[in-house]
């Protein structure tokens, strides 16, 4: 009997120790010393395979994967979740596994806890020693050429941590803009609108011409935040931002209330779609294709491209892109939907990888001259040829396997492009030449030129500046604020609550702790400024 008790006690004690000792091992290692061991030229001779995780699937016959292996000499085993619909859950499950892949492609810059958290928790590798040891010369050369990008690629403690998607041209930064019916403008003898006042004039003129929904814009989900149409005309973005060195919250500023009043007026005057909260794609295309719409805010490819394909040319419906609406004529808008030149998405090397140097070399290839072409255009003679464009510049030009519907084996242009290239999301420098070839309509090409026309860069807060602790506090404050705002503002716009509710709205935001959220961001931003000596 006594023996049994002792045995149980022993088990209990050993279990407690086992639990306590887990996760403690090897916490204080010295920073690793990195030396180059592989040849500095491509293709590299190796029998090792690199496991590469990404959230979107890679097909069996993927040509780009073949090209990449041929060029670098490195075999890649692609891993991706079976259900790509829920990328963040798939990513979390992958991170929780014991056997991490060598290369992980994800939105590292705005990942949970920020880059430093992932470095300190030994999920990803600190790339700074590799940078110093000359193992990633191509990315280093690109940063030396564009030193202003360096601060966007390092963590808040100044470490390199990922191979990002870099935009090779500012015009790649936005893929959404405002489109207005050119034929209606001509009929009404009006100019393309640039300022808010001109827009109002145009939209009301459309209404008088019998257009059912002069303006279509989605307000739900993320669209009710950053991109809320015309909000920037009141010099307030729908997000946290910095004005000089002071952090502010756009939804807490007076300009936001003014915008809500205008939207409520537009709603009751029938300028906005009655069903603006329950917008579906079917509803949009029905309204636009049947000529019931006057203007919309949407994407250049997915929206304008699809609608233009579907519109019967005999109806004479023609959409033309507009400049980002601003408050003053001739001035750029304060804010619009626009990416940073270094995107949040990129590839990191996992901390547990056994082939770190090889993985780094594989990723670094993408930033070399040939690598950039490979990621954007595939292989010469197969998916592209060097040809002169309209300006007389010699550029890689997609061949018929991508551009000619008859030679694509039933694929769409986008699918064919995804088979031979990764032009849409390269772990490399994205080329503007890709975008101009991707869009077939002149209106789309014109849209590229105007869509990014805002001063967002002067106001936007950098990505990933908050640490895990700050992030948690912010989430606790902002989640209820978002819930409250979305409900209240939707109801005010739709006339279900009186305009006077706005007074209460500001009070409620204060009560929900917005001031504390602002000060958390302020603290994080101050730290960021300090780190970069700004």
């Amino acid at each position, binding site marked *: 009997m006594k023996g049994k008790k002792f045995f149980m006690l022993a088990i209990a004690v050993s279990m407690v120790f086992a*639990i306590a000792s*887990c*996760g403690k091992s090897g916490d204080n290692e010295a920073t690793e010393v990195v030396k180059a061991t592989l040849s500095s030229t491509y293709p590299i001779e190796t029998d090792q395979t690199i496991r590469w995780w990404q959230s979107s699937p890679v097909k069996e016959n993927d040509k780009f994967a073949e090209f990449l292996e041929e060029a670098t000499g490195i075999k890649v085993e692609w891993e991706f979740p079976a259900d790509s619909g*829920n990328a*963040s*859950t798939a990513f*979390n499950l992958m*991170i*929780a596994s014991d056997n991490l892949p060598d290369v992980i492609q994800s939105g590292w810059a705005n990942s*949970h806890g920020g880059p430093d958290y992932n470095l300190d*928790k*030994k*999920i990803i590798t600190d790339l700074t020693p590799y940078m110093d040891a000359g193992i990633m010369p191509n990315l280093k050369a690109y940063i030396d050429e564009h030193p202003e990008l360096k601060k966007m690629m390092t963590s808040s403690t100044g470490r390199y941590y990922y191979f990002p998607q870099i935009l090779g041209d500012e015009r790649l930064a936005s893929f959404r803009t405002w489109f207005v019916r050119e034929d209606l403008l001509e009929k009404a003898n009006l100019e393309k609108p640039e300022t808010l006042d001109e827009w109002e004039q145009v939209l009301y003129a459309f209404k008088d011409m019998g257009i059912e929904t002069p303006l279509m814009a989605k307000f*739900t989900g993320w669209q009710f935040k950053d991109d809320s149409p015309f909000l920037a005309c009141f010099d307030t973005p729908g997000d946290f931002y910095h004005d000089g060195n002071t952090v502010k919250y756009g939804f807490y500023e007076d300009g936001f209330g003014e915008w809500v009043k205008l939207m409520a007026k537009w709603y009751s005057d029938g300028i906005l779609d*009655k*069903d603006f*909260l*329950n917008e579906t794609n079917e509803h949009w295309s029905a309204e636009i294709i049947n000529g019931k719409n006057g203007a919309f805010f949407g994407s250049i490819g997915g929206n304008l491209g699809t609608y233009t394909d579907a519109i019967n040319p005999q109806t004479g419906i023609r959409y033309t892109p507009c400049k980002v609406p601003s408050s003053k004529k001739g001035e750029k808008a304060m804010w619009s939907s626009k990416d940073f030149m270094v995107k949040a998405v990129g590839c990191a090397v996992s901390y547990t990888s056994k082939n770190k140097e090889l993985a780094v070399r594989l990723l670094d290839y993408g930033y070399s001259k040939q690598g950039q072409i490979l990621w954007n255009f595939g292989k010469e003679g197969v998916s592209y040829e060097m040809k002169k464009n309209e300006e007389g510049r010699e550029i890689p030009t997609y061949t018929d396997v991508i551009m000619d519907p008859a030679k694509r084996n039933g694929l769409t242009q986008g699918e064919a492009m995804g088979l031979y290239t990764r032009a849409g999301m390269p772990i490399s420098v994205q080329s503007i030449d890709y975008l101009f070839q991707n869009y077939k309509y002149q209106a789309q090409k014109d849209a590229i030129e105007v869509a990014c026309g805002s001063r967002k860069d002067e106001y936007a807060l950098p990505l990933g500046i908050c640490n895990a602790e700050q992030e*948690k506090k912010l*989430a*606790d404050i902002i*989640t*209820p604020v978002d*819930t*409250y705002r*979305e*409900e209240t503002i*939707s*109801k005010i716009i*739709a006339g*279900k609550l009186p305009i006077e509710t706005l007074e209460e709205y500001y009070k409620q935001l204060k009560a*929900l702790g917005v001031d504390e959220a602002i000060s958390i961001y302020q603290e994080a931003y101050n730290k960021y400024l300090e780190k970069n000596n700004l």
Partner: protein
Amino acid sequence: MVKEIVNQGVAINKTAFSYRFKRDMKKNYSLYILIIPVLAFYALFMYKPMYGVLMAFQDFEIRVGITGSDWVWFDNFKRFFADPYFKRNIINTVKISVTSIVFGFPTPIIFALLVNEISKKWFMRTVQTITYLPHFISLVVICGMIRTFVGSDGIITSIVNFFSANPVDESLLNNAKAFVPIFVASDIWQSFGWNSIIYLAALSAVDEQLYEAAIIDGAGRIRQTISVTIPSILPTITIMFILRLGSILSVGYEKIILLTNAFNAESSEILSYYIYKKGLISADYGLATAAGLFNSIINFAFVAAANSISKKVSDIALW
């Protein structure tokens, strides 16, 4: 002297049990083998995952797991209770749940009683098949149908507008007051046929002699139902009711996701939707587990209370 006897008693009982157990094993070993898969199922899929509730007391980090995460004890619960929408989530959940118990619980019973009175077999089968059918339709499709029916030009909206003093030209889902009725009514429509199966089974087990005796005593159809049928299936009803109370805070989030919008959020945001948002969208696993554990504790309290009341009042109980 007394002590000795007690000790003896314990010793005898113990040997008696292990002796009986061994003898039973030998005799019925095939039955014991049969139950192994069930026990394994419960151990693996019901008990093993339970240690995950430890996450509720941790600042859980998915990379290092439960053994490596920091213990924060009741911090997650504090955050959960401090959420400005905590009260609203609970009230909405209880509102939906109580409404569906009040209207949804008696429906399959009444339906079963009515079906039981049908004497034509083919008619009875047809009715049953038609009423089971919605149970097999995917929730996504059901919600798509609901959205269409109560849309601005949907059939239900048109009917409501016909009888209403102030007709609306928008979806009924945009009206927060209409949300609970839409949610509960569609729920009843989808499940009452399926839920009536168990009562029909109970009804078929009622002894025919009781009805014969009642008829001899001069009881009509209604009298038979009240005095024979209902008392006979009362134990089933009670057990079902206790079990139903066990899910008083468990209103599924799937249907909410498919029907919610900013206009009806004030009555559609519920506890499970909050857990879904925190756990799966924001990956705040600790907080979501704490909220889930709170949910389970309340549910368990309701079952336990209902069970003991029922035991005292009617002697029918789960345990």
